[in-house]
């Protein structure tokens, strides 16, 4: 009896879940049959939407009664909310997304502060002021075909973010009234950050990494170093302690971007330091001042170490190609390379003495590696000469044996 009751219970559960899966949705049924593309499209797109995959229906956002096949299904009396105005979209989405109790069953780690962040953003503030051109949730995430952030097709997937922001921010006509530049995306695309992202490194910075996503705000002059320092920690720490920190603050100059630019952050070069044609230092410093003298010292030390490493590398490569075992020396040279990297970080102290503290040991190491390479090439030369002498000796011995054989056999024949 107990077994029969349990079986019946299981069957009811199975049938119940089957009914839930195929439950009626008059919204999709009707909209799928409509010819007006504006009304048909949502029904077609919704199939791939993350909300649909999570089990939500049209009625969960728009209200109404999906079990009713008549137009009454869309009656406000049945809770139909219809299509929200653009200015109402953030609140529309936040009904669920700001509700921890509602969201946690779907994803316990999902944030629920998007709306409050959004309201602090330039977009949110302007929306409150009645500007309906600013971005709301659907402008970035899409409508009816919303995908998870981790989905490579999502407009908010790291490699797609610049294009999504650029949709408005690179449109000069659309942005005309805001009087802000529209070349940020073009500049960003030339940056080392975009290069890394294009190379598949999704941790590389894109627009939202520096500006924030829901609370998107341009970093102010004072906060630039903090924004860059989120990733470039050591650089930011050195800059904070450097003479530039106080001077920049006094002059109202932004930190990092003063030398590295903001969006077009290209791969830095040692030639930026010093007094050469590419020098950034000389855009502010003048000949003879302490800053430029220090810059010259930094450039000199970096140049010396870079050259020493390149020389040692060439010698070791030549020796290695010739079959010499120079792996220990190459390992040593790698530590000289590390010293150069550390020295380049120390550039952000803007003190030649601090840079020299790292480049001097690096130079010593590079010199040792170079000497090892030169010794390997000398050894190679010795081997070749030795081989020549050995081969000549062997040939003479072979000739001697040959003559001896002839001598013996001519005697035997005689």
């Amino acid at each position, binding site marked *: 009896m107990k077994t029969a009751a349990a079986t019946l219970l299981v069957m009811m559960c199975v049938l119940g879940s089957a009914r839930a899966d195929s439950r009626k949705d008059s919204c999709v049924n009707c909209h799928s049959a409509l010819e007006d593309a504006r009304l048909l499209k949502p029904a077609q797109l919704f199939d791939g939407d993350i909300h649909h995959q999570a089990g939500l229906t049209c009625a969960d956002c728009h209200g109404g009664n999906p079990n009713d096949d008549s137009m009454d299904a869309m009656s406000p009396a049945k809770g139909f909310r219809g299509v929200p105005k653009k200015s109402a979209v953030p609140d529309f989405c936040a009904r669920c997304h700001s509700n921890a109790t509602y969201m946690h069953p779907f994803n316990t780690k999902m944030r629920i502060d998007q709306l409050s962040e959004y309201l602090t953003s330039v977009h949110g503030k302007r929306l409150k002021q009645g500007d309906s051109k600013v971005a709301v949730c659907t402008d970035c995430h899409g409508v009816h075909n919303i995908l998870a952030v981790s989905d490579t097709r999502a407009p908010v997937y790291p490699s797609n973010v610049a294009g999504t922001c650029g949709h408005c921010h690179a449109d000069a006509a659309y942005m005309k009234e805001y009087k802000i530049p529209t070349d940020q995306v073009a500049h960003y695309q030339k940056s080392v950050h975009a290069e890394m992202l294009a190379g598949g490194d999704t941790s590389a910075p894109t627009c939202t990494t520096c500006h924030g996503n829901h609370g998107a705000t341009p970093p102010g002059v004072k906060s630039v170093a903090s924004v860059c320092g989120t990733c470039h920690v050591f650089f930011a720490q050195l800059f904070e302690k450097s003479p530039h920190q106080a001077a920049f603050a006094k002059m109202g100059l932004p930190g990092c971007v003063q030398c590295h630019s903001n969006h077009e952050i290209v791969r830095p070069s040692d030639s930026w330091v010093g007094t050469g044609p590419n020098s950034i230092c000389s855009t502010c410093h003048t000949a003879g001042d302490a800053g430029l003298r220090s810059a010259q010292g930094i450039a000199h030390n970096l140049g010396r170490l870079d050259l020493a490493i390149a020389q040692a590398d060439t010698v070791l490569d030549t020796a290695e190609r010739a*079959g010499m075992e120079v792996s*220990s020396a190459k390992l040593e040279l790698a530590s000289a390379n590390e010293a150069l990297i550390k020295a380049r970080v120390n550039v952000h102290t803007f003190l030649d003495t601090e840079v020299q503290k790292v480049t001097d040991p690096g130079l010593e190491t590079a010199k040792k590696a170079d000497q090892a390479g030169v010794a390997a090439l000398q050894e190679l030369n010795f081997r070749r000469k030795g081989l020549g002498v050995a*081969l000549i000796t062997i040939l003479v011995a072979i000739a001697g044996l040959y003559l*001896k054989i002839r001598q*013996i056999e001519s005697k035997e024949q005689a």
Partner: protein
Amino acid sequence: MSGLYRNALAWLDERFGAGSVEEFLRHKVIPIHRHSIWYYFGGMTLFLFIVQVLTGILLLLYYRPTPNDAFESVQYMMTQVRFGWLIRSVHSWSANLMIFTAFVHMFSVYFLKAYRKPRELTWVSGMLLLFIVMGFGFSGYLLPWNTLAFFATKVGTEMAGSVPLVGKWMLIFLRGGEEVTGATLTRFFGFHVAVLPGLATTLLAIHLMLVQQLGMSTPPAVEKAIAEGSEPRRIMPFFPNFLLRDMIGWYAALGALGALAAIFPWELGAKADPFAAAPAGIRPEWYFLFMFQTLKYLPSKVLFIDGELLGIFGFSAAALVWVAVPFLDRRIGFSRATRFFTGAGVFVIGYMMVFSWLALR
């Protein structure tokens, strides 16, 4: 000088009959005919074996057979020890040349039917020596403890492990445990410098004794021509005529070894990292390539038998048949070559070359 030589010989003769050795050498002769060139490959293999022994002893002065020290000790020899690079490179090149000349010697004996009665045991001892030489190659390959050697040994010992019944035991015996570790290195070192040299020296002594006892074989076709009177029987004294010619070959081999070592020093590679992924395109030494490629081509199952296992059994059976050829190819008679065995030999050489080439592509 001649007087001193005679006095020394007389002194030795009084004590252990050295005169009989001289007498033997004086009377030992080598047949001369159009195939005489192949007689030199046995001596060449012996010479390279002696080079292996001497350079191996020198390497032992610095080599340390532990996972922590093996790679570093070879690296030290290659970079810090005077002529260490030469000794190690000559050892490695000589090993490969020795295997090559051993194969040439084996095939020349096969095609000239030198294994026929009464030289069956000379052939068997020679074949066993060839297997031991390949064992030297397999065990020595791991000793520098570099990445390629580590993974090649892993693959090689896995093959032994797939043999039914005794496979698991063989794998544990070879590796000294479930995995290729320091225990494997110690074992391979032991095989390479103690077990295999002991076996090789014993078999070599038997092989050489049989060669001296039975003399050089004349190919059946030459014997037939001599019997029919179309070719005269020509001979050459072994000492000094043939030995001096042998020495020319040894000097040439020595020059080739020196040139190879100086121009193409044997690579050391990167130290083995048991936790790293196996490098792409890993393959064994060239003399195992034909077997390796065959096993790659075999499907995972042939009927109900594991493909790899079938391959291993196939090669083992073929090796047994090959060793037993003198007992199977008994219709040679005095001068008649059996076409079947000659054809099989051509097939085997072709198979080895084609499959090795396919593995190298």
